[in-house]
């Protein structure tokens, strides 16, 4: 029992990342009808927003610290981050420590800008082209974005730690009445899950309870009619693209402490999130979220030793296997809408 709960918990954080990326993908697909292979790159850029902010906050100058001496007896030069000299040592150190959560604020405008530029500059011209062309051009864009990041940040993963408060693990088992140390779970992953749930809830609330969201939903159902009613649906869809980019970016920012950002993480996640979208059903937002969590949890279950000894190698292929089975038995995915991507 405790092992099962542990695996469910383990699956949740990866599942949240899948769900967030798949949510953005589905938003773009449902509104603009574009298959965006560059979405993984947006996730990666989000991660690098966190890296950038922590680098900016760590910018420092050297000061002579009279209290310390190096081994020759000379006064030691220590690095003094600008933030610390502006806000005082304690406050500055706290800001640096909290660089990842702060990067959320930093990344939202950045990601929305990138999303706007992408949509207006490139993807706008591909609405009328076949899906294969859309896949190909965004695939090219993904390569370009990832190479640009590689050029500026190098090929190695850059560790970006979470705030010190969230280091360590949370003994989940005690709450549920198991022995201590049976179900332990890192705090940051808990934060990540909560954050993902918040974002997903916010996106759904935005679409469900605002006028803007209502118009967007109407546009997803029947774009032409909404246009005929005198609403500039293209403008709203562009905003939705920016929003989807921001969701992917936020997923990336918060994922930075879990997995040190490197330039190809976007591609790694992209393949899986596409599988997630297809399993959930193209164009279905709840489907994308449900499939994200489902596949995340299944993946962590498959990596249990008992199951691995039963079917060797299952942990490597479970996601793809599930995708194949679902696609063959339920052609529209779990919650796919009729008439979407059926040619």
């Amino acid at each position, binding site marked *: 029992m405790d092992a099962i709960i542990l695996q469910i918990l383990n699956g949740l954080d990866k599942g949240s990342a899948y769900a967030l990326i798949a949510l953005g993908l589905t938003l773009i697909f449902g509104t603009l009808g574009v*298959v965006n292979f560059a979405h993984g790159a947006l996730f990666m850029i989000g991660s690098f927003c966190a890296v950038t902010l922590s680098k900016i906050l760590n910018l420092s100058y050297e000061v002579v610290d009279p209290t310390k001496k190096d081994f020759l007896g000379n006064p030691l030069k220590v690095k003094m981050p600008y933030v610390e000299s502006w806000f005082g040592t304690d406050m500055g150190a706290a800001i640096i420590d909290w660089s990842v959560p702060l990067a959320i604020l930093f990344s939202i405008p950045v990601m929305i800008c990138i999303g706007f530029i992408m949509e207006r500059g*490139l993807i706008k*011209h591909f609405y009328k*082209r*076949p*899906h*294969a*062309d859309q*896949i*190909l*051009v965004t*695939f*090219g*864009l*993904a*390569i*370009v974005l990832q*190479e*640009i990041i590689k*050029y500026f940040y190098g090929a190695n993963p850059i560790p970006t730690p979470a705030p010190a408060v969230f280091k360590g693990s949370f003994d989940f088992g005690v709450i549920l009445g198991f022995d201590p140390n049976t179900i332990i779970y890192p705090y940051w992953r808990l934060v990540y899950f909560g954050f993902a749930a918040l974002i997903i809830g916010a996106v759904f609330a935005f679409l469900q309870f605002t006028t803007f969201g209502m118009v967007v939903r109407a546009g997803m159902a029947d774009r032409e009619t909404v246009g005929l009613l005198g609403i500039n649906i293209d403008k709203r869809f562009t905003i939705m693209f920016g929003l989807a980019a921001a969701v992917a970016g936020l997923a990336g920012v918060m994922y930075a402490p879990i997995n040190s950002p490197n330039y190809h993480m976007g*591609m790694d996640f992209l*393949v899986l999130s*596409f*599988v997630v979208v*297809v399993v959930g059903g*193209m164009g279905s937002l709840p489907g994308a979220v449900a499939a994200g969590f489902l596949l995340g949890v299944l993946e962590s279950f498959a990596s249990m030793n008992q199951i691995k000894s039963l079917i*060797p*190698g299952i942990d*490597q*292929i479970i996601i*793809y*296997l599930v*995708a*194949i089975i679902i*696609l*063959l038995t339920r*052609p529209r995915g779990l919650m796919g809408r009729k008439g979407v*991507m*059926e*040619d």
Partner: protein
Amino acid sequence: MLGLNKKDTTLLLVVAILTLCAPFILNPFPEGSALAQFNAGYPDLMQRFVIFGIFAIGFNILFGLTGYLSFGHAAFLGVGSYSAVWMFKLLSMNVIPAIILSMIVSGLFAVVIGFVSLRRSGIYFSILTLAFAQMSFNLAYSVLTPITNGETGLQLTLNDPRILGMSATADGSIPVTSLFGLEMRSTYQMEVGAWLFQFNAGYYLCAAIMLLAFYLAIRIFRSPFGMMLRAVKSNQQRMRYTGLNPRPYTLAAFVISGMYAGLAGGLMASMDPLAGAERMQWTASGEVVLMTILGGAGTLIGPVLGAGFIKYFENIFSKINDNVLHSWFSFLPDGLEDFIVTIVHPFIGKGWHLTLGILFMLVVIFLPGGLVEGGQRIARLFRGKKTANTSKTKTEPAE
């Protein structure tokens, strides 16, 4: 000739002459001159040209004709490589059985994967093939290690059985791959003045096979079967109403293109007998898509051009470094020289993929028909408007 019309015969002959004279054509600059780095006439690179040419020709039979975009073709290449190396390990170092086995095994793989994946079309098909390829890649890395040797890759060793050959040569080293005794790596070198031309046995084997593959592709393109495949691409619905089932045709195309990929993999292993799982990764599948699109999907010569183009520039661009750039732009004033070198720097050396990505995007945006369409446009420009209508050949850009 050979059942081809005049235009196709000319095309085949041109390709044949170009491939057979490649050691000369690709080596236009004298050894040791400043431009010698643009030479591509060494065996390793030429082999890659033709092998990836075969791979792209095969991919084009599926994508160019039926419009099914497979994102998992590298799996067949990998399977072909593995089976060829196993043949070297178990049977003999002769390349013929290895190549045949690699085609058979990858063909069987393609039957299974195609049978399942072709039940869906469009993006679902892409995702399904991608899923199968990633599954094979992940399995090759983990559970199948006894067969694939995991991360190290499958290599020949001194204690392989090699029933029809020998486990080790007389001087105790691993025997090399050969075609009935003709060693694949044997190279005849010819020095003419300052030029050094290299004629490699392996290259000529690959080139001959590529020509055969190219000829077959022409025949498929021009056959009634090829017509059916085009029908699948343009309108499946109407095809079904005519009383034809598109599934067997697409499956046949899928298997043929899978066998081409397996053949390419087998040849790759024959030239250099090792096989690794990274050949099956989805980025490798992406590469063949790039080649086909860049050259011109749906055209005969396009994929070969694209493969040669990408492999050539990959090689050249990765070799250029800042020093080379400085020597090129040394005629400029110092400040300007440094400025230009700084600007160009991200695009060369390790930044080759950036150049490739940008190039690829430009091609998809402005030239959906690839290099072939570009060539046609230029040709039309020169010939003037009079022939503009007739020069619109059958090579429709793919969708």
